[in-house]
Structures are given as structure tokens and as C-alpha cells.
């Protein structure tokens, strides 16, 4: 089963043929994410803080959706509820028809800091997921098979020469790429990204956005991407879900009418401007 999944990732040149998405077994297929009446309340000492309330959103399989909103509007909390790290107080998260009850490998997550394990090399970081799953009996591959898979993914993200390097020896952009490789090797159906480029300088951030677009074209995962940057949201996503208010809620979902594959230099500037104006008008409403 595993050998087939490795082959479903198209070869370098084939990314241009806009694939409908990777075929094959349950793991590795992009999944639909359904948020239904999702509410989260924090109770600390006697105070009750509503993180967000009554969020309804359906993300189609393979869709790239950005969660846009100012700091403190609950979007990171929402992402963690979808990941299964936090339990909702009301409502549910359904991924590929199954309700989420806790964290699992089918919902990969990337954070603002790369969160690589500092005592492991880049390659061993990437192999962490498969090895952890093997110890639970969820993965039966041999060391050699896992190794080959890891090498292939490291090659895709461009870290082959640095496979033996430790995280502190890598630059910020490289660490994020390694974290991406680590998350993707477990073939998640959904990738949750919490402002992953927020801590990077503007230039590296541009490159990482290009990188993410290329990777999305290749792997066609469902992605839920949290950001407070309007330009980033427009560049990357198919739809922008906007969160705001007190208590925070999903106020609008805006379509981004830009063709794919999207390359930063050649996007339709007029469409970008129109979408941006639309978003701005919603924000200042």
C-alpha cells in the first residue's frame, strides 16, 4: 500500500498538469472539512472568555482556505480545535465524514515557529511521524522504505544537502521547509497552518509563499491557513473566511477569483485589487 502512495506524488515537471488530486487509499487523499456550530469558551478562575462562537464552514477536499482576522480574534484557537488539540464547547468538526475527537496524523499542523525537534537531524525530524506511527502499529514500513520516502520529500522541498543538519544549523526558511516535509510525509488529508510565515522577514516570506503554492499544486491537500495579512490571504487561497467581532465569529467568506497555478508575478492584478477592496470594505464595515 505504501509504495503506491509514494508514486502518486507527480514527478517534478508534471505539476503543471493541474491534477484533480492524488488518487489512492484513504490516507493521503485530501479530505472535506466541515465545521458545524463550533463554539469555544475559556474558563479561567471565574472569568468566562468566548474564543469564538457558532462557526459554520465547509471546506471542500483539496481547497485552500484562509482564515483572516486581526490578532486576538480567535482564529488560532479555531485552528487548534480543528486540529483536535482543544475540545469545542459546542458544535463539531467533521473531517472526511468522521468527527474529530483528538489530534491525529490525518490533520497535520504547522506553527508560527517551525517546532522541529532540536535533538534530531532534519531527516530524523521528517522520519519522526512514520516512526511514531510504527510504534503504534499504524505503519508497517521497513526502515529502508521510510528512508526512501523521507529522502524523496526532502528532495522536493530542496533540503537534500541538509538532511543531516540539525535544526539550529538551518536558516529560518529551511526550518520551515523541514517542518513542512515532516508534516507531509504522514500523508495528512488536511494541513492546518497557523501563521507559519509570520515570524519570517518579508523576503523569505515571499519565497515561502511561492514554495507553499508549488507544494499545494503538487500535493493538492486541503489547507486551512490562518493569517492576518490580506495580501497573503489573496495570493494563496481559493476562499477567504473572515473572523471578527465580540464574541468573535465567522462574518464573511469571500471568493478569490484568481486562476491557478498562481505565480506571484503574473497574477491578475485587477482581480487582486478588486478582492482586496472587497475585503477591506468588509473589515471597515
Amino acid at each position, binding site marked *: 500500500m505504501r509504495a503506491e502512495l509514494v508514486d502518486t506524488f507527480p514527478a517534478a515537471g508534471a505539476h503543471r498538469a493541474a491534477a484533480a488530486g492524488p488518487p489512492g487509499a484513504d490516507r493521503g487523499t485530501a479530505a472535506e472539512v466541515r465545521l458545524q456550530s463550533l463554539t469555544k469558551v475559556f474558563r479561567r478562575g471565574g472569568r468566562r472568555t468566548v474564543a469564538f462562537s457558532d462557526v459554520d464552514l465547509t471546506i471542500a477536499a483539496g481547497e485552500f482556505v484562509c482564515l483572516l482576522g486581526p490578532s486576538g480574534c480567535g482564529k488560532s484557537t479555531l485552528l487548534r480545535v480543528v486540529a483536535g488539540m482543544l475540545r469545542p464547547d459546542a458544535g463539531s468538526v467533521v473531517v472526511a465524514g468522521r468527527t474529530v475527537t483528538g489530534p491525529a496524523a490525518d490533520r497535520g499542523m504547522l506553527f508560527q515557529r517551525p517546532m522541529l525537534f532540536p535533538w534530531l537531524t532534519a531527516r530524523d525530524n521528517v522520519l*519522526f511521524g512514520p516512526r511514531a506511527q510504527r510504534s503504534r502499529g499504524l505503519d508497517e514500513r521497513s526502515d529502508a522504505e521510510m528512508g526512501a520516502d523521507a529522502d524523496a520529500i526532502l528532495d522536493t522541498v530542496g533540503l537534500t544537502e541538509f538532511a543531516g543538519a540539525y535544526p539550529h544549523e538551518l*536558516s529560518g526558511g529551511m526550518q520551515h521547509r523541514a517542518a513542512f516535509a515532516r508534516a507531509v510525509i504522514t500523508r495528512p488529508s488536511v494541513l492546518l497552518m497557523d501563521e507559519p510565515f509570520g515570524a519570517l522577514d518579508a523576503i523569505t516570506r515571499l519565497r515561502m509563499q511561492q514554495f507553499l503554492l508549488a507544494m499545494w499544486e503538487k500535493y493538492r491537500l486541503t489547507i486551512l491557513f490562518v493569517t492576518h495579512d490580506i495580501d497573503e490571504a489573496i495570493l494563496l487561497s481559493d476562499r477567504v473566511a473572515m473572523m471578527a467581532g465580540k464574541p468573535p465569529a465567522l462574518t464573511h467568506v469571500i471568493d478569490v477569483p484568481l486562476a491557478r497555478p498562481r505565480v506571484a508575478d503574473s497574477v491578475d492584478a485587477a482581480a487582486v485589487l478588486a478582492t482586496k477592496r472587497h475585503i477591506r470594505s468588509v473589515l471597515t464595515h
Partner: protein
Amino acid sequence: MTTTSLDAREPDTALPARGDEVWRNERVDLAAERQARRRAGRHRLLTGAGGVAGLLVGWQLAAVLLDDPVILPSVVRTARTFAHYLTHNYPSQSPPLWEDLMISLRRILIGFVVGTGLGVSVGAAMFSSRTVRHLIDPVVEIVRPLPPLAFIPLFIVWFGIGELPKEVLIAFGVVPVMIVAALAALDDVPDDLQFAARTLGASRAYALWHVQIRAALPGIITGMRIALGGSWGSIVAAEMLAATSGIGFVISQAGNYLDTALVFSGIILIAVTELLLDTGLRALAARADPSRRKKDRV
């Protein structure tokens, strides 16, 4: 340097096929960095050795000026005494210096290993459960500052006059230090690191052991270094008061007979042994977290 004008450039119409095509000019020279670190390590070693050599020269100078072998024996005399008693008995009925060191070391290591195991377990339990933490925290804070030595008479009453009371003494000093160190180290690990492990498919237990505790290891080892240093103080004092063997006993005997050269020898032996053990622990810490090598060596 080439300059391009706005009109002359062709817009990029294709996404890169591979991640690294986005970074065509990026270069990190791993080999050069590692070589620079090794060079810095050598520099540190030589400078440290130079410092110790300077200390010895100062000592010899002071001894020669003072010219009193009881108050301050010279380096040469101390070295000769050291070499002699390392293998010869002092006094004639008791074992040589080397064996006394081994006796002390054995007491320390047993107490230390048991104490560390206990301390880290309790610390981990406190980390996992808020109730356990609130329960045990006040007890630790009361016991920790108490000098273990004050408990020697009690331990002798409880455990007799053999090896046990001394081993318990060491463990008694080690446990509170390790609880505090382990708990602090575990608290310091960013929550997201364990979350990341869970989203990669790790079970709760796997993430606790392979990520949380693994990440806390450098902090735990630092706690061990501190606990080990304290252990020497406890065992030597205990041996001076209530033992008939061990390096503390030898030192106190030598003091009684005004053989300060032997006293110095004993102290130096303790220092060297502690240095070796500490260096071993530091090497362990460096292996546990490669990024620390940067701070420690460079």
C-alpha cells in the same frame, strides 16, 4: 553587478517545480561552521589548561615564600605525597587513597542514581497532574534547603552504621534538587512541541517520553550536575563525622596528624574526580541537545 530595467524583465509564469528552486542563491556552509566550532573548542581547552597551570605556579610560589610545610605544602611535596599514598596505606591498617576514593564514589553513585530516578519520576508526575503538583510542592520547598548533614544522626538511628545511611544521605540531598530541576525543565518545553508530535501521529505516551522528557533532558542533566556537586560535600562531611573509611575520613585523619600535604592530596583527588564526572555529564547534555554545543563551546 547587473541592473535590470522594469521593461526588460520577463514575468515568471511558472511555479518552481521543486522547493529549492525558490532559493537559488542560498548557501549555508555546514562544514566550515563545524570546523570553526572545533577550533573554538580547542581554544577553550588550551585557555582552561593555561588557567590551571597559572594556579599551580602561584601556589608553588606562595609555598616557597611561606616556607612552612604544615601551613602550605609546596606543589612538589603535595604531588609526592599524593603519589605515595595513592597506593600505600594510610594509616597502616586502612586502605590506600585510591580505595578510599572508590568507597566514597560508590556511596555517592548509588545514592545519586536512586535519587535521580526518584526525583525525575516525581517531577514528571507533578508535571502531568496539577493535583500532584500542588500536593508535593510545599513538601519539596520545606525539605530542599535543609542540610542533609543534620539528618546523619537520624539516619544512623534508622539505618545503622553500615553503608545504607550514607547512601540514603546522598539520595536525600539529590531528590529535592532533581524534582525542582526536572519540573522546571519539563515546564520549559513549549507546549506546541508536543502538539506537533501528536499531529504527526504519536500517541500520548510516545509524545511524553520521546518529546517532552527528551526535550527536558538538558535541563535535567544540569540538575544532575548540581546535585552531584552537592553530593560530594555531603559525603565528605558525613565521612568526617561518622565513618571509618572513605576520602572524608582520610582527610580528617590527615588533619589530626597535621599532614596537610595529604589533606591537599585528598581535596585534589575529589576535585579531579568531580571534574571528570561533570565533564561526562556535560558531554551527555551536549549530545542530548546539539544546539547547546554552540553556547557551551564557542
